[in-house]
């Protein structure tokens, strides 16, 4: 096994044109959305990275780019050292064929109901990928592999479930079938894109536990996308993984779970922490952002992207785009406040608006 990361995202930018009509094309009013802007992220063997952020921050786009389902506008993605899109285009010396890369990088979507073909029984849905990729297996071998896995995720007896249609399964069972389908390929990385958000609260913990259990069996890494910091923390902490926080196309903070939770550096991470439900915490009344709505992603703020909402913003934040500063080992934050000697501390506060914290 090489020492290269399973997936390495290097300075990747993904842009979409919003032009939806010919009219836009001729008048040149088409706008470009930079969904992902210069992101680098390595996912190692048996790694769990939880990617969190608000809707529209580009986390799904980054996830899809990381598994080679979305071609980046700039930058490169490599799988065990092999550039995915070079493999796809047959450029240069391809050491790992694109097909094998695609098979090794799988995805679970948010809505299991629409990820399964409503007209196919569970068995048929699960057979298809095996038929395509492991065509030397006999029908019985394929079937027994599916049964074993279904029983493993608690769908027991498997004979009862394989002949059902998706609508005859509960939401939790559907999501398990989708998980089984992705793991049948023995993937190196599974992108779980809000995979538990549609489940009932009481099922979420169970589903995350199951994912982690299967990680031990299959040596899979997860890129777990969520808007919920408490779920991200649960799965990443149990797997000794990392949390990456995304805001308007950029990763603004990344680090080991305990450091992100105990010592969040970026004001945005602190805001997300505020928004995370805690049954027994004192409710802090005031919303700690100056604007509750996320800015228009076609026209993101200059310099630090969070400065329009940030309760700590100073003049320098509107002029200079901060770089990633290292707070602790392997813990980085894209905020001047992490650098104790930065000019930020001499800069004037950008707004007079008082936040709850500043109030006497």
């Amino acid at each position, binding site marked *: 096994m090489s020492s290269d990361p399973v997936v390495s995202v290097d300075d990747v930018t993904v842009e979409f044109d919003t032009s939806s009509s010919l009219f836009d094309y001729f008048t040149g009013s088409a706008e470009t959305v930079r969904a992902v802007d210069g992101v680098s992220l390595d996912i190692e063997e048996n790694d769990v990275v939880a990617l969190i952020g608000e809707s529209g921050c580009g986390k799904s786009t980054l996830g899809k780019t990381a598994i080679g389902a979305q071609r980046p506008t700039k930058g490169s993605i490599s799988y065990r050292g092999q550039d995915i899109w070079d493999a796809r285009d047959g450029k240069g010396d391809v050491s790992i064929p694109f097909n094998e890369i695609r098979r090794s990088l799988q995805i679970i979507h948010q809505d299991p109901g629409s990820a399964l073909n409503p007209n196919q029984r569970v068995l048929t849905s699960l057979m298809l990928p095996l038929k395509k990729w492991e065509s030397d297996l006999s029908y019985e071998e394929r079937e027994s592999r599916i049964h074993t896995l279904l029983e493993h995720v608690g769908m027991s007896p498997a004979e009862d479930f394989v002949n059902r249609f998706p609508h005859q399964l509960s939401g939790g069972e559907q999501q398990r079938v989708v998980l089984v389908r992705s793991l049948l390929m023995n993937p190196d990385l599974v992108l779980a894109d809000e995979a538990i958000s549609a489940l009932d*609260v009481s099922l979420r913990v169970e589903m995350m536990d199951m994912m982690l259990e299967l990680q031990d069996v299959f040596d899979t890494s997860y890129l777990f996308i969520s808007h919920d910091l408490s779920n991200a923390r649960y799965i990443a902490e149990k797997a000794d993984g990392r949390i990456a926080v995304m805001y308007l196309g950029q990763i603004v903070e990344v680090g080991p779970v305990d450091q992100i939770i105990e010592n969040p550096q970026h004001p945005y991470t602190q805001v997300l922490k505020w928004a*995370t439900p805690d049954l027994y915490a004192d409710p802090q009344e005031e919303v700690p952002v100056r604007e509750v709505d996320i800015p228009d992603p076609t026209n993101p703020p200059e310099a630090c992207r969070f400065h329009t909402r940030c309760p700590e913003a100073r003049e320098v934040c509107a002029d200079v785009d901060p770089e990633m500063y290292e707070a602790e080992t392997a813990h980085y934050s894209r905020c001047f406040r992490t650098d104790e000697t930065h000019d930020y501390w001499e800069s004037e506060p950008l707004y007079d608006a008082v936040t709850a914290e500043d109030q006497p």
Partner: protein
Amino acid sequence: MSIETEDAPRGRGDEPIDRGDPIVEIRDLEVSFDLSRGQSKVVRNVDMDLYRHETLGVVGESGSGKSMLAMSMLDAVVEPGRVSGEVTYYPRDGEPISVLDLGPDELRKFRWEEVAMVFQGAMSSFNPVTSIRTHFKETLQDHDYDVKAGMERAENILEELYLDPDRVMDAYSHELSGGMKQRALIALSLVLEPEVLVLDEPTAALDLLMQRSIVSLLRNIQEEFDLTMLFITHDLPLLTKLADRMAVMYAFDFVEVAGTQDILYNASHPYTRALLGTTPDLETDVEDIRKIEGSKPDPVQHISGCSYHPRCPLADEQCSATEPDLFDVGEHHRASCFYPEAAQEKIVIRNQPTDRGGVDE
């Protein structure tokens, strides 16, 4: 494990509620659907009081019957659903109204002017080819309200919800983000000055940050407009930041009803306690967050005895034979369990703050 409420962090539920002044009274409510495999009872003999100016939170998992409960408050259960029982509405002055007996015209007036409802899918609540302004105007016109005064009020409410009235009014629903749409919908529901606002999972499709923001805004709005709110959700932590009282629904009926602080610190039903213990947060040791064993009940197959007994660690013969009533287990605190003390003692909620101070073995 008894906890002095004085030391506990105070959330909602610490203000006295005038229990002598209900605004909506539900008695013996039942909602059922006839399916090919049998009758499906999605609300079973529910009694509920909603007191004036309180926020009552109904929490339950999907399929527990909570949305149907809300729908029946407005007599809005769709065919072929059947509703029986009594829903009585007490206006500020005048005679009590029996909601389930209202004719179509009376019902139309009742629905927006007395009780308004905000649904989960704000996306589908607006007509995509009509501007937001038109929605407000038509609502006012249909109910014979003064449009000019009404629009001014609407703009104020929008500002209250951190929205720019000029921008929002001229927009079509696809031009607004999910959070903006949901807030515009809340504003629309308030434009006819209802007494009661029923919110059914109003934040479920939104980011956590927007959810928390909307909850804070709702609290301001409730005070400003003297509203009574019924907030329905599966999200227990969110509810505790908003509700004065909470009603926990399991298998189509309430299993525990109490003030929010009592639910948090003295929950007496095993299901409530399991729900509290399965909620991930940022503080609790990940090993202490537990899943709830078993699967949720089927509305067609009636479970004999206590509906939770197949999943309950404390269940015995009595639980599988006899259905428990909602017993009084404390002041204004009721739970449908034969063993409330045992539940408190044996089902430990590890994220409760008392455990945090001590050394974990």
